[in-house]
């Protein structure tokens, strides 16, 4: 315990020099600008900054990336409030109440609420990041091939189930991601799969070019093909953080903060799940339910705290298990590997200080967004006034640089373009990209774990279902698939209603 606090203190001190802090602020600024621009996501911000920061010291580079991650999610709420378009997917829940407040001439107040909620919930999440990561890492040391196989499958399945409105299409995208991850030399025998004699494919489809294509080029194409350009609401009132609102809605902040952290712990659910679940929970218990969707402070506070606290939540499985919870955390994990840190169960053994450094980085990121929330909101919004005919070609320029810079291969640019065009057409047909990303990241783990597990069990599937952790992960994964079967879903619904009815009855009796 004392050693942990000492490491944490040392981590904070290690970042206390002007140049490092300036890099952190720069990362948060870049993230916020990307977040403010509709469609340009936290994933793209981190992917582009990964290439830009490759020559920096590892810790400074990761500080920049974490600041940009937090900054992008925070910046995205501005667009949700002023344009009714979420800057990133995580800000979708803020649209209804944020935009309603803007229409009532309270856009500044809505932005102030977003700032205070974001800062508080990120700091709350940081506490859990510091305490849960070492605990989960201890549990993860018990994981073997069987558990990692189910964890990979669980992540992709959960992502497919939750992201978008159609689980079937989500799972198909997960399968595409897993399949793309099989391209190139496999890990056990260096056998080349699906390379068709093309030498460039032997290295596989690299994560960053694929992500830049799926989230960058696809968005550029979406924006340029839309004939309508939207206009933003004017800011007339103060945008300063509203601490009075924060105190008034303190239980919402606490509840949504916890929900955000715990949804963040689940692999594959993404930041938007934290926001939506928090929003639904706030609505369920609120005394002003009728205001939800029409400019509710409670609703906006819940959505903003839920998505921001999920950032530290997502970092926990990345660090402890090496399994990302969302697309941005997947890129962050790739960046950590590029800088010589291998996240996973061995992290606490090989780099015990790194977890505390990440805690310090996330704290600095939340302070950076507070600074920009206090002084930088209005100037940053100018970026929304740049016509997309000018902005989007420049974004594509950055995408090309981002795809090329990691390995200096032209092939990566071609891969980015192919993935981007494919993603654009798939998105127009109702397919989401987040499960594809999770599949791409978890594909090698799934492949290696299944085959190693089968060797260990001499071909028997039994240990995949009988070891305690495997059993739990297998049961949840299979349950998620079965929920798609109408008969099973209605049976679960009936059982759930009966349990809820019974609980209400028991509570009623005890009250009487």
């Amino acid at each position: 315990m004392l050693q942990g606090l000492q490491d944490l203190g040392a981590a904070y001190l290690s970042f206390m020099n002007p140049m490092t802090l300036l890099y952190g602020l720069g990362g948060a600024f870049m993230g916020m600008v990307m977040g403010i621009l509709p469609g340009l996501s936290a994933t793209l911000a981190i992917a582009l900054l990964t290439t830009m920061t490759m020559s920096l010291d590892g810790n400074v580079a990761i500080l920049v990336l974490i600041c940009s991650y937090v900054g992008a999610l925070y910046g995205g709420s501005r667009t949700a409030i002023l344009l009714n378009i979420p800057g990133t997917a995580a800000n979708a829940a803020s649209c209804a109440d944020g935009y309603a407040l803007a229409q009532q001439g309270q856009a500044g107040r809505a932005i102030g609420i977003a700032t205070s909620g974001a800062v508080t919930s990120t700091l709350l999440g940081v506490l859990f990041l510091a305490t849960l990561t070492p605990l989960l890492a201890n549990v993860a040391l018990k994981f073997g091939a069987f558990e990692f196989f189910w964890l990979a499958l669980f992540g992709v399945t959960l992502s497919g189930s939750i992201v978008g409105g159609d689980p079937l299409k989500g799972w198909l995208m997960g399968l595409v991601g897993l399949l793309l991850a099989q391209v190139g030399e496999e890990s056990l025998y260096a056998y080349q799969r699906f390379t068709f004699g093309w030498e460039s494919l032997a290295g596989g489809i690299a994560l960053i070019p694929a992500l830049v294509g799926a989230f960058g080029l696809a968005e550029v194409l979406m924006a340029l093909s839309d004939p309508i350009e939207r206009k933003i609401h004017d800011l007339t009132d103060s945008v300063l953080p509203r601490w009075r609102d924060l105190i008034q809605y303190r239980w919402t902040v606490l509840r949504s903060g916890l929900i955000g952290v715990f949804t963040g712990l689940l692999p594959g659910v993404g930041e938007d799940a934290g926001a939506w679940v928090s929003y639904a929970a706030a609505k369920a218990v609120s005394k002003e339910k009728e205001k939800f969707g029409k400019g509710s402070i409670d609703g906006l506070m819940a959505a903003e705290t839920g998505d921001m606290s999920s950032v530290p939540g997502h970092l926990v499985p990345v660090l402890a298990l090496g399994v990302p919870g969302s697309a941005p955390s997947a890129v962050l994990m790739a960046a950590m590997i590029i800088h010589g840190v291998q996240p996973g169960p061995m992290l606490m053994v090989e780099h015990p200080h790194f977890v505390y450094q990440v805690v310090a980085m996330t704290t600095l990121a939340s302070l950076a967004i507070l600074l920009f929330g206090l002084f930088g909101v209005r100037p940053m919004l100018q970026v929304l006034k740049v016509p997309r005919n000018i902005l989007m070609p420049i974004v594509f320029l950055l995408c090309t640089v981002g795809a090329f810079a990691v390995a200096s291969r032209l092939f990566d640019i071609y891969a980015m373009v192919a993935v981007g065009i494919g993603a654009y057409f798939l998105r127009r047909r109702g397919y989401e990209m987040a499960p594809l990303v999770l599949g791409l990241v978890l594909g090698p783990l799934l492949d290696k774990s299944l085959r190693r597990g089968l060797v260990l069990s001499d071909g028997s599937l039994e240990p995949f279902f009988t070891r305690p952790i495997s059993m739990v992960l297998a049961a949840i994964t299979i349950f998620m698939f079965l929920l798609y079967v109408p008969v099973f879903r209605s049976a679960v619904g009936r059982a759930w209603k009966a349990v809820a009815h019974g609980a209400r009855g028991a509570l009623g009796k005890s009250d009487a």
Partner: protein
Amino acid sequence: MKRAKPTPVDETEEPQNGIADSDSAASPRADLHDAIGWIILGVAVVVASLQMDRLQDRHINPYTIPGLVPGLLGAGMVIMGVILGTRSWMRGAHRQAIVRATPDQREWSKRALLAVILCCGYSVVLIGHGLPFWVASSIYVTCSILVFDHMSADPAKRRFSVLAVAKALLIGVLSSVVVWLVFERIFLVRLP
């Protein structure tokens, strides 16, 4: 486990967001076409996996053959494709009439096609074939601005004036040089 509420900008909910033809994102007919595509892809993956070398000459454990996981994924894709196809059939995909694209949808498709051509032209033709990065980028950004301004609904923007061309050229050159300077000179990142 479904999300509590659909996102307000879900493309599937905004028909004006350019669903180009009868293949609208949510239409059963589009899903049926997708299902056929997924089944064909899945079968192709299974066949390719079965044809993969089993490395018998290296005496590897038969449970670790390289084609195992891709084969399972291909089979999963076939199953999902069949479910998607069955679902769309039950939702009346075979009865749905083919609807002609509206002018808005045609405009959307035209813009998308142009954007794809410009992006491919830049990243496949201009980049990596000897032209300096900033020159290639300047050409791409300038052309993109001019092309999409010309397609704008605003008649003033649609006109190709000397001033508009000069403005586009200035933005193109300036943005390309700034990107080149920041990445290559300040952050020491190699550019194509």
